[in-house]
């Protein structure tokens, strides 16, 4: 279960609406925000795939102009990859023999 620390950059005038939108997302915790439009959040998901999806959907919220990663911890996932329990899915055909 990866844990990511992000800074969401928001147009200051739209921060109240953005915070309301963010509050609906239970996988995300808002830790702080300031008048410049910085919103500090931690996202915790089952998989990093889910985290990436979530970040992409958050970026579509009106008022957010960018979401930057600051910290990502994924030891569990690395262990799963190495043990074969999790293979990053590439559902792709075989192109060369």
């Amino acid at each position, binding site marked *: *279960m990866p*844990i*990511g*620390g*992000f*800074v969401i*950059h928001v*147009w*200051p005038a739209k921060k109240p609406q953005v915070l309301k939108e963010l509050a609906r997302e239970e996988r995300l*915790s808002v*830790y*702080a*925000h*300031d008048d*410049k*439009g*910085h919103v*500090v*959040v*931690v996202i*915790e998901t089952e998989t*990093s*795939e889910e*985290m*990436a*999806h979530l*970040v*992409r959907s958050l970026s579509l919220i009106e008022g957010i*102009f*960018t979401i*930057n*990663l*600051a*910290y*990502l*911890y*994924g*030891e569990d*996932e*690395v262990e799963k*990859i*190495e043990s*074969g329990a999790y*293979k*990053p*899915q*590439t*559902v*792709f*055909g*075989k*192109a*060369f*023999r």
Partner: protein
Amino acid sequence: MGLSRREFLKTTAALTAAALAGIDLPLKGEDLAQAAEVDGWFRGTCRFCGVGCRVELGVKNGRPVAIRGVPQSRTNMGYLCMKGMLFYQLMRHPDRLKRPLYRARKTDQFREISWEEALDIAAEKFAQALKTYGPASVAYYGSGQALTEETYLFQKVMRAGLRTNNVEGNPRLCMASAVGGYITSFGADEPIGSYADIEQAFCFFIIGSNMAEAHPVLFRRVMRRKLDNPDKVFVINADPRVSPTSRIADIHLQFEPGTDLALLNAMAYVILEEKLYNEDFIKNYCAFRLGKQKKRVSFEEYKKFIAVYTPERAADICKGNITPEIIRLVARKFATSPATMSFWTMGINQRIRGVWANNLIHNLHLLTGQLCRPGADSFSLTGQPNACGGVREGGGLCHILPGHRPVKVDKLRHQVEDLWGVPRGRIPAKPGYHTMAMFSAVNQGKIKAIWINCTSPAQSLPNADKYRKGLAREDVFVVVTDIFPTKTTELANLVLPTAFHFEKTGVYGCTERRSQLTVKAVDPPGEAKPEVWIVREWALKLADKLKDPVVKKCVEPFLGLEEGYALPKAIWDEYTQKLTAGRDNDLRGAPYEVLKKLPDGVQWPAPTKEWALRGGTYKKFVRGLDPLADIHAVDERPYQFYGPAHKDRKLWIWLRPHKGPAEEPDAEYPFYLSTGRVIDHWHTSSMTGRIKELMRANPYAYVEINPKDAKRLGIGPGDMVLVETRRGRNILPAKVYEGPMEKMVFVYWHDMAEERMINRVTKDAFDPGSKEPEFKICACKIRRLSGPKPLKPYIVRL
């Protein structure tokens, strides 16, 4: 009470993020001492674009488990983007190439072989080609993702060892026009200023760049500047397509593809007409030049030339939302802002007249004196992490030797031969094949052995099918060094597994002349090896087979050195201490010992350790800021333009006429086709395509169609659409989207699936100056084939 491990990690994540934003969190710091989330953090540079973000890789039990940004970083202030987010997955991905693979015929199955056998085969094939067909029959095609040490050593062995200048790299496809622009306008390659200008600029002119998606971390700095000074800072974006960049600009200029030269000349017209130019700057530092002969002309002649580019005429040419008034407005903003900074990338460079387009952006800065001052700069963005450091500076193109030395200049070529201790005349006097000529020569069977390193031309070349035929020839021996299978390994005889970033040591030089060291943190998987080891061992075998001691001489200084650190360090030392000495990219002050002391690296010129330890040169050509400006000063003026290409020590304002694209829409092919990137993917997606998260976000390329065109053609969202050019056909799902303007479609180029691989249909016309292809524009027709169909993402695998 202590925190649970998970709470501890969440607190760490929050504190790290808050530190970047400068926010104090009311969390108990002492709790953080209770558990170590990693055994150690290793400093390095992100390798997924040209910005050069400083990143730290967290390693636990020898495995990469975390990444984090560092607030003190001068490039990214600690912020990272989605591409950098998950690259630990790449390092542990099961698809990584782990052992050398070989097949005699390209229709055979690969079989695993030993390194000994692999290097012997590679040496035998190159030696055979050289002995039978001569030095022009062998070639190296490298990458802006290779470390400087790698590019430098490859090109040294090719030029001095194998006596060929057939040394090229994929930066030819993305930034050769920027090189041409800087050299012809400023007399020296690479930007004068730095990212630090962003925080001092008042007007941003972003043209031909979707900076928000292609360079998101740098774009954050631009937007931070805007948000902190909403009434003082003005953002102009000029692009035929509405993108995330244009959506947050103050003004978006939407013009037809290929009309940029008219727009830029019209801005110059307004600057002249309204006397917004800086007469002193022009008089003191500029000269006007015309044509291939670089004829010097007067300011009056330039004014006469520009007189035909009235805003009214330009608006007619540009179409879209361009009006005479909007041209006048942006020209005034550009000229009268206290400091204007321009950014551009492939939209300008990948043009049949990309060098001219670069020149015309520089012209605006020269006319207005928006240069050399804090916040004022004409700044080309780079797509790859080491296109500047390795390829432009390290000798990775067919016409340039290390240290920005043109091959054709006898004195400089002999200088390199002397520094390498090889006989004079060893390096051919004639430049080798440029990229498009190189792959044409492969097609024609003129090249018999080619080494392709860390790049996938089978997917990234324009009109790719044409060139894949050559690579598929059985009489062309293809070696590929890479970390994953690609469209190019499909055409290879020999595939050699290489170490990835943080699995080896070396330097990347990013867009702002900044060299940063990444030291090996973890071991590569299986038998993967750093390229520097591969080249050294290959060269030794070549020397034996060719019975040529000069080949051995090329790697002699590096014999016996341990590959993880000592070997790249020795190569970097040779390159910086010998080859950059006295050149404009002087890096003598920046050996590994210095780079290790400086987390953000060094900006050249940095001729001494004392200067390097201050971080190097933030602004070139300015006395007091650039040590070479003082050394080369010829008078008391504050700016000293010592660029090696301009003997008159002037900046050149060029008279460049408007020129449209090589292929314009017509009755048969009525649409413009343009290509580009999406934030989640990078280049051919051989790396990002393997990260499940990124593939799920954008699993396959689609064709963006303007809603008006879609309505007219009966195309709905997700419908399967035929995109056809004179070169071939693609079938892609439609994204009906207010992005491209009417009569224009846009396709991302990362998809490897044959039916969606857009470079199969792009045009291979190229700029006669820079030889960079016009990826951005060709003519196409589109037609609805069917409703939506389920598609599967595709990536090459073993």
